[in-house]
């Protein structure tokens, strides 16, 4: 273990400096660390490779990385990168500086309903998103619910659950009560206990129900000194709500903690539930939440929604300042007045602007089609005509549309804050007096969602104003990635 000496100054790959040990298990240790170049705090999970081999989990590590890469969501702890040596595997992850949610619960015994609901909403958006990507947590429990610096929920170990080592080693801080429950099946769905084969989605929903109960009550719904009794209580869903639970909360809990997975509530029903919906627009927040009021709306009146503005990390890393600007911009409410006769002065392109757009220079295609988040087309219409077309699309799709500072058009929307709001920026260039090129980029939200929106909605509805779609802009056919995966799997 090279780890032991000089532990608080150890440099990993010349890029991260390991610091305080946050937790440890049988073959994994989690450290707080700093990125040397930027000072950014991260969490580094260090796995002992021999132990991974011995326990036959080698293949799992790879699939779990793949899973974690797919679930990028503002309420899910993010995997930044992987590193390895001959004896160790390093998972570099987002650091949730707020610590465990349940540690906070321990301080205040229980949360007032609006606070509990807000955490529950964030939990559900994360779980819903992961399910939409085919990823089930299967081990939702207090230690996996963390808070970031803003007090927003971050679900950790999505995809890592299969790698979870024995729970005995996890002695992180927190309250005694809930942690003594570890090692008992307190959060596990009845069908999982019965080992009859189960639906990961339904099992996760059950766990969310238990978590909601704990948030509201400050104690576990199914608890006993005797493990057999705990089992029985779970399989019968035998719990009692304390008197301060509202009627609506009780009703929802009854649906979440339905012992029959077939009749148990689905996520879409949960998110449509009136009690769940209630808090979705917290306008007065003393805590700095990552939730925004609806800013300027062009054309369409809309109920306010919360904004989980998630920027792709590529952008975010590249221009953290810019993100700050975006935020300010949003808050400063650059209202575009209707009727939408917007004076967009298109940028004029010179030779370099044009050639730098060649698909032959777009090396990103070498990597992964999944990442594509740009579309470009040319048009013979006037800038005003293009603008009004974009506005029309925005209106029918229930998106906000606005001009941002740089004179670009931003479209933003999606159903409340489910997957991190999709934000699309469109820029109109004048190539020649009669030819304009419109470039659309995803600047916030999820790449697969952008492509879906682009293919299903944007492309068909732009129809008549498009002269031609450009260059490589054929529908993404991910020929390479599966082949690549196959190739990597074949490796000894």
């Amino acid at each position, binding site marked *: 273990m*090279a780890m032991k000496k000089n532990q608080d100054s150890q440099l*990993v*790959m*010349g890029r991260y400096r390991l610091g305080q040990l946050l937790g440890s298990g049988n073959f994994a240790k989690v450290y707080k660390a700093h990125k040397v170049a930027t000072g950014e705090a991260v969490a580094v999970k260090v796995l002992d490779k021999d132990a991974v081999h011995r326990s036959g989990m*080698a293949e799992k590590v*790879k699939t779990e*990385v*793949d899973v*974690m*890469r797919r679930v990028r969501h503002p309420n899910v702890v993010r*995997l930044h*990168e*992987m*590193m*390895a*040596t*001959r*004896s*160790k*595997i390093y998972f570099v992850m987002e650091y949730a500086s707020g610590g465990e949610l349940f540690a906070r619960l321990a301080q205040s015994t229980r949360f007032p309903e609006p606070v509990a609901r807000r955490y529950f909403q964030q939990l559900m958006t994360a779980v819903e998103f992961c399910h939409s990507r085919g990823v089930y947590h299967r081990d939702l429990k207090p230690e996996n619910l963390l808070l970031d610096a803003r007090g927003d929920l971050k679900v950790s170990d999505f995809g890592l659950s299969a790698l979870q080592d024995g729970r005995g080693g996890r002695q992180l801080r927190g309250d005694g009560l809930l942690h003594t429950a570890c090692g008992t099946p307190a959060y596990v769905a009845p069908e999982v206990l019965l080992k009859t084969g189960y639906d990961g989605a339904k099992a996760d929903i059950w766990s969310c129900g238990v978590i909601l109960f704990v948030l509201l009550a400050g104690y576990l719904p199914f608890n006993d000194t005797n493990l057999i009794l705990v089992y029985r209580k779970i399989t019968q869903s035998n719990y009692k709500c304390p008197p301060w639970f509202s009627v609506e909360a009780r009703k929802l809990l009854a649906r979440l903690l339905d012992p029959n997975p077939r009749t148990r509530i689905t996520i879409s029903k949960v998110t449509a539930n009136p009690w769940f919906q209630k808090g979705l627009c917290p306008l007065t927040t003393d805590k700095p939440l990552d939730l925004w009021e609806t800013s300027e709306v062009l054309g369409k009146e809309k109920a306010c929604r919360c904004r989980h503005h998630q920027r792709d*990390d*590529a952008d975010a890393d*590249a221009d953290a300042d810019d993100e700050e600007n975006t935020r300010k911009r949003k808050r400063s409410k650059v209202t575009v007045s209707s009727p939408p006769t917007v004076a967009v002065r298109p940028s004029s*392109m*010179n*030779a*370099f*602007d*044009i*050639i*730098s*757009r*060649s*698909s*032959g*220079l*777009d*090396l*990103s*295609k070498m*990597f*992964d089609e999944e*990442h594509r988040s740009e579309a470009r087309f*040319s048009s013979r219409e006037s800038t005003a005509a293009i603008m009004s077309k974009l506005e029309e699309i925005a209106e029918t799709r229930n998106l906000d549309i606005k001009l941002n500072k740089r004179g670009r058009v931003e479209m933003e929307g999606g159903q409340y804050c489910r997957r991190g709001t999709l934000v699309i920026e469109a820029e109109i260039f004048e*190539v*020649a007096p009669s*030819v304009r090129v419109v470039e659309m980029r995803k600047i916030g939200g999820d790449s697969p969602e952008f492509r879906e929106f682009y293919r299903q909605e944007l492309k068909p509805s732009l129809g008549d104003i498009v*002269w*031609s779609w*450009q*260059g*490589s802009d054929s529908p993404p*056919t991910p*020929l*390479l990635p599966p082949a*690549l995966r196959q*190739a*990597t799997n074949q*490796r*000894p």
Partner: protein
Amino acid sequence: MGCLQTKHASRSPHLLDTREAVALAAETSFTVSEVEALHDLFRKISNSVIRDNLIHKEEFQLALFRGKKQQNLFVDRVFDLFDQKRNGVIEFGEFVRSLGVFHPDAPEDQKVAFAFKLYDLKQTGFIERHELKEMVLALLDESDLDIASDAVEMIVDRADTKGDGKIDQEEWTEYAKDNPYVLRNMTLPYLKDITMVFPSFVMHSEISETDMAV
């Protein structure tokens, strides 16, 4: 190390040499792990047509255009620049060093210089007016854009700020500074994700703990 060589020699003749990985990491913005992950991508591309662990031009085109046979002026230029030894193939070292320029953390001047070489089609040390025009026409053609020739002239004129018919390094550097957007294609954010896209290396990495500190 010696043990490593014999252990793996029979299994895979194309295994990445640990020393090479460490050396490449030291030379670029990549970590050793990223170099190892890139090796997976390299193996895939370099064995797609001819199984020789070298990227031939056809293989490069294939990787960029996904099976669609497409001649492209810019792909040819990028290939030539990657092929530092000018022997018609891209070796792993060349691949990593060249991609290193596209790393989000790579120094800006590397990107500026790379782009200049790219656009200096005939390598005269200047991006000449006719080269610019050739590239503009190639792009318009690639995009199925049909634009009047006087408009094309105008587009080319706009780039030649000095109006002397050619653009030198200095002029280009100035221009790139004022218009950072033209260097956008010189940065590949995906490179930061490479260890997650190709994570197999974590199990078979043979990097020692001391190498890791690099």
